[in-house]
């Protein structure tokens, strides 16, 4: 790309950010990049809010008994922390923010398939979030983000608005997923065959399938719980002949795949970043693609592993256990490919790479704890303890959030045309990785010691580990705040990045940074896949 003549120290004049500077131009935009940036800002805002609740929880747990809040406030806080982090941050963060921004750029399209639906998805998300937050002002639900019946149908707190909010956000998710599937199917640039697609696009594609197929079931379940509260429908109420366990089956039929909605896109980010920062092609592109689709498929058949202690039939436990082991294999393959990509590469120690390494370590550790749960017998001890809390935070925070930060640092120059202070970013990355270890390794040990989750109060023998975890959480918080600080500063004052500061051969870097509204002046034509740094035929590693 040769940008039009720019003044020194200014961004290329023809970019999507300069297309219109009014708020109205943002609110009515159909540009996938602006929509992606809007999602990014919204999700970061919710991440901050969820983080405030997380810190409040950690402070409460500093001492057994009351520290700063009573039981009810604690129960509401962990519910809001969960609801906000899962539905307002994790699920939309990577697909809706980075996916929207990057998928069309990566496949050489001008926009997503249905730009108007894409904008509708933002508004649905905002509406759902507002309804859920309105519920929070009403006092907030105290059911946990899982809404287990019959507690959720009998408690006196404001469960309805939260259910409704999540229900609406579900539609936003469906629209985004539908859009990406159509986009990837129909709008690929000439020469961009399926097996040349960037791995991030594959990850988003797999995620979208899950979103489209699993979210409606969640919507129906939430509706049933809401009806139970409003008209006493009785579907999950044992007093009317209903079965509370059925709720768990239907809920996890969505919510287990939802875990992959959260983690698959992050794997896509890592696949891109690993290639870019080691200047290598993906070591096993094919295996990553197959395992992505494998996870998207097999992920639908593992939900019962959330219910090993509920009196599930032995056969069911066995079947779900084996399926869960298969999903773990798909993840193992990816870790192997990422490590192989680093081998004999030219590795640049930039901030995104620190997050990539953190990601691999946490995904491996969290994944292996998951494998241990799938043995079924160990699950009987660990289920619903802090070990589970640590496990899914290893995956959600350790993996997804690390990938989110890796992506944010990798694509920040692409999105805003400026770089951030590199040394500061590296320091913050190290701080975040160690803060994370300090927060969640004690929680894993707490689970081993038998500390159940969702406890406002605990036997004093658990205190030392809780203190360690809270200390780690404050490190993490400090790390996040410093990242927010230098990125906000860099939005205006960062050095100009140029079109491709990393020298990356990802397809998204073929356009100008920040890209013009039309993305490309000339539609790119692809003869190879992305990240082909070395010319010539591939060689098998010895």
């Amino acid at each position, binding site marked *: 790309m040769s940008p039009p003549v720019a003044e020194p120290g200014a961004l290329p004049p023809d970019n999507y950010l300069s297309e219109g500077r009014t708020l109205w131009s943002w609110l009515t935009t159909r540009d996938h990049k602006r929509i992606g940036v809007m999602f990014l800002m919204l999700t970061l805002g919710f991440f901050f809010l969820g983080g405030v609740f997380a810190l409040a929880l950690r402070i409460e747990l500093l001492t057994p008994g009351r520290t700063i809040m009573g039981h009810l406030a604690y129960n509401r806080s962990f519910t809001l922390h969960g609801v906000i982090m899962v539905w307002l941050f994790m699920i939309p963060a990577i697909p809706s923010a980075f996916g929207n921004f990057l998928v069309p750029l990566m496949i050489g399209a*001008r*926009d997503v398939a249905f*730009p108007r639906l894409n904008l509708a998805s933002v508004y649905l998300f905002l509406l759902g979030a507002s309804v859920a937050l309105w519920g929070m002002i009403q006092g907030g639900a105290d059911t946990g983000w899982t809404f287990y019946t019959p507690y959720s149908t009998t408690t006196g707190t404001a469960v309805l608005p939260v259910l409704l909010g999540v229900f609406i956000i579900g539609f936003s998710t469906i629209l985004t997923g539908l*859009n990406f599937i*159509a986009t990837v199917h129909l709008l690929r640039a000439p020469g961009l065959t399926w097996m040349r697609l960037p791995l991030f696009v594959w990850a988003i594609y797999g995620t979208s399938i899950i979103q489209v197929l699993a979210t409606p*079931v969640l919507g*129906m379940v939430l509706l049933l719980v809401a009806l139970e509260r409003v008209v006493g*429908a009785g579907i999950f109420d044992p007093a*009317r002949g209903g079965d509370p366990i059925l709720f768990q089956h239907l809920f996890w039929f969505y919510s287990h795949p939802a875990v992959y909605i959260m983690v698959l896109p992050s794997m896509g980010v890592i696949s891109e970043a690993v290639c870019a920062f080691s200047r290598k092609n993906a070591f096993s592109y094919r295996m990553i693609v197959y395992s992505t689709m494998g996870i998207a498929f097999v992920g639908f058949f593992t939900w019962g592993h959330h219910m090993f202690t509920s009196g599930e039939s032995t056969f069911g436990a066995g079947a779900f256990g084996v399926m869960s082991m298969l999903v773990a294999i798909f993840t193992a393959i990816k870790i192997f490919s990422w490590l192989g990509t680093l081998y004999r590469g030219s590795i640049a120690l930039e901030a995104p790479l620190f997050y990539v390494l953190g990601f691999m370590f946490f995904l491996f550790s969290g994944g292996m704890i998951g494998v241990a749960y799938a043995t079924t017998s160990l699950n009987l001890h660990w289920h619903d303890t802090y070990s589970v809390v640590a496990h899914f935070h290893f995956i959600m925070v350790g993996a997804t959030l690390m990938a989110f930060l890796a992506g944010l640092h990798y694509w920040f120059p692409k999105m805003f045309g400026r770089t951030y202070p590199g040394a500061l970013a590296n320091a913050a990355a190290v701080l975040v990785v160690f803060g994370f270890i300090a927060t969640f390794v004690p929680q894993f040990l707490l689970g081993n010691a038998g500390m159940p989750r969702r406890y406002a109060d605990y036997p004093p023998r658990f205190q030392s580990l809780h203190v360690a975890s809270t200390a780690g959480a404050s490190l993490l918080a400090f790390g996040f705040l410093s990242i927010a600080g230098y990125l906000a500063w860099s939005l205006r004052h960062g050095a100009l990045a140029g079109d491709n500061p990393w020298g990356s051969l990802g397809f998204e870097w073929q356009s100008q940074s920040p890209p013009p509204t039309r993305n490309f002046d000339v539609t790119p034509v692809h003869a190879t896949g992305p990240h082909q740094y070395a010319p010539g035929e591939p060689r098998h590693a010895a």
Partner: protein
Amino acid sequence: MPHESTAEHWGSEAARAHAAHLGMWLFISTEVLLFAALFTTYGVYRSVYPEVWREAQAHMDVTLGTVNTVVLVTSSVLVALAVHATREGRPGTGGALLGLAALLGVTFLVLKGVEYAGHAREGGLPGEWYRLEALPKPGASLFFSLYYLLTGLHAVHVTLGVGVLTVLAVRAAAGGFSASDHTPLELGGMYWHLVDVIWLFVYPILYLS
């Protein structure tokens, strides 16, 4: 500007229609899974309360249900004919057929309302309002809850569908479609067929078996 680039964005009108169809199919798959959750619930409780449910089923108005099935299938056929007529270059006929199909949709809703009124008189209401003395409460109230959920959710879809068909009929009458350009009509038709097909599953499990 987004709309300027739309034509270029898609390359051709055919590609655009293709995308619209793909989007519709994806939407239909989400709808199917939405109902699948209810069908699963139905299957579970039917196997838990086989006896009670058989008796509860005796309280269904099979005549009205069957008439409604015929009504809905007929309207679905009319929509198919409307799409066909438009493809053949007779959008006016297509519009008229669509209007008829929408009317049949309204008929369906009215009959459904009559049925609901009958159940309400009898006391066959969902959840805590269940008053049917003849049947013991636990399993039977579940049957009625699921009956209202399945048919109610379906009725919401019918209502939306009637709206869609009406808009399409008006647009067709105003000459909005031609043999080459009638993608919205096809999409609306697909949606109406979906509504019809869902009913073809709801009807036997609630009224017949």
